[in-house]
């Protein structure tokens, strides 16, 4: 099933064939939003807002309802302020297990390298089997330097070494990998806070940018993830990966509306070029 077309077709159908905005109409709208992983609460908020606007603007044309809903979602996703990046910069990449952190790092490194920046990688996942080898292979493919240690080494000290190397080598962008960790594991989250502090200690030399990687396939748990990671390492942005699948990644909508963390990039494949800047309009269009 190619949901993208189904989805859009569905809402069109909904708008064309249901004679009035009855309960059934809003129930089906609920289904569309829930199936895109927006979650119960946000779905209800959006439906209520849609009801309101239909009334206030006295919308009779069902075609227009679609643009109303889209506008409501876009308003949530769009950013009031544009984040500006200053170099030299350190990007700390965090997230739960298997979401695509290491692959995203390769993609980001590729992006900055193409922009002519001097990039350095830090192999901060010293825990998972062959994690160091994985990021090392990417560094070789990209022809970018990497700071690494053996599996089992202290991740904070790898990051520290990388920061010193970045200073010495006049690196523009240092990107730090971390081991995947579930946000409900306190010890792993405090390890992350420690890594965060090591970078923050060098704030006179670098701007720090903490990036949370979220898997578009995930459901409501992503809200918890964003919440807790934001507490452990104040987040500056989100990368939503695996959008090349059939999941909509709608979970970023409640996250954005609750935590105000901007979505900066999307991952659309396993190769180093499969990274795109997040665009609210395109995202919303794909949603409906």
């Amino acid at each position: 099933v190619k949901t993208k077309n189904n989805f859009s077709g569905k809402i069109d159908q909904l708008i064309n064939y249901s004679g009035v905005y009855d309960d059934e109409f809003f129930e089906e709208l609920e289904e569309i939003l829930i199936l895109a992983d927006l979650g119960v609460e946000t779905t209800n908020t959006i439906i209520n807002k849609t009801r309101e606007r239909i009334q206030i603007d006295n919308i009779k044309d069902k075609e227009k309802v679609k643009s109303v809903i889209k506008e409501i979602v876009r308003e949530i996703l769009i950013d009031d302020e544009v984040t500006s990046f200053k170099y030299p910069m350190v990007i700390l990449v965090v997230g739960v297990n298997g979401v695509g952190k290491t692959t995203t790092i390769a993609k980001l490194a590729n992006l900055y390298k193409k922009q002519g920046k001097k990039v350095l990688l830090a192999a901060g996942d010293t825990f998972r089997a062959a994690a160091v080898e994985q990021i090392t292979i990417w560094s070789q493919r990209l022809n970018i330097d990497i700071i690494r240690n053996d599996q089992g080494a202290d991740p904070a000290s790898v990051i520290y070494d990388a920061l010193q190397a970045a200073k010495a080598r006049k690196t523009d962008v240092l990107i730090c990998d971390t081991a995947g960790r579930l946000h409900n594991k306190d010890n792993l989250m405090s390890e992350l806070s420690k890594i965060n502090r090591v970078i923050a200690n060098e704030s006179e030399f670098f701007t720090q940018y903490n990036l949370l990687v979220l898997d578009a396939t995930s459901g409501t748990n992503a809200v918890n993830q964003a919440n807790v990671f934001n507490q452990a390492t104040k987040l500056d942005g989100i990368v939503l990966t695996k959008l090349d699948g059939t999941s909509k990644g709608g979970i970023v909508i409640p996250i954005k509306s609750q935590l105000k963390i901007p979505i900066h990039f999307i991952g659309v494949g396993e190769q180093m070029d499969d990274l795109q800047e997040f665009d609210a309009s395109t995202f919303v269009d794909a949603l409906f």
Partner: protein
Amino acid sequence: MIFDGLSNKLQDTFKKLKGKGKLSEKDIKEATREIKIALLEADVNFKVVKDFVKKINERSIGSEVLQSLTPGQQVIKIVNDELTNLMGSANSQLSFNSKGITSIMLVGLQGAGKTTTAGKLANLIKSQGKKVLLVACDIYRPAAIKQLQVLGEQIDVSVFSLGNSTSPVSIVKSAMKHAKENYFDIVIVDTAGRLHIDEELMNELKYIKDEISPTEILLNVDAMTGQDAVTVAESFDEKLDITGIILTKLDGDTRGGAALSITSVTGKHIKFVGVGEKITDLESFHPDRMASRILGMGDVLSLIEKA
């Protein structure tokens, strides 16, 4: 917080009904509405929820509840029974071939936990006194082979690999030959993560299946998966006719509604759950515990007493 949402709400609903004697259809509707919300908040697929709630409604409105002196208890019991039934009442075990080599193939989306689970399964089966061979068929992800080798070393299980320039089908073919010649009992095949809509890579799995006719084809699903779990599970099952499911990363705080979604669309049972990153973090699946978890009811029995 969210976790005891449903039990509190249901308790409130039923408190109002207490002493009323019998429930009306409207009362039951209200209760099932709360159940619907709880299931959706747990990421159970919308369509699965709809069917489920309909069934609950029918059963509840049937005489067994309306005639009961403790209708609240009855509704909760029905919900819990139906959920547990859907996820398979029996504790499903791995199948082993009575003669020859048993082969197990692990499949799933990217990052679901296949390679880690391969190590965990190898460790478990090895501890039952069997000779296990791990086969590295992920020729795409950087260091995927090395990852399996590191895990194999940890548990002293051999890993069969032909590097990453031989096709996975040829790799399994050679691996089976190697296993026969060296008297292995069990072969566990780790495959690359792939999207269910990637036709080429889905065909690759089919060819591997045709080559070795695996005893088990286990779909690995991340417990945090949202609404799309049904699409994924359906696609893998249609293509491969999977024999079971492994639900990974259940050590998180997800309610894990995916468990219900995938079992209800495929009819296949969850055979194991992954509860951590360590090699020993693999447990058998308990449908009743999962039901309580999805509903956010830590202890259904105590709830029934209070209702």
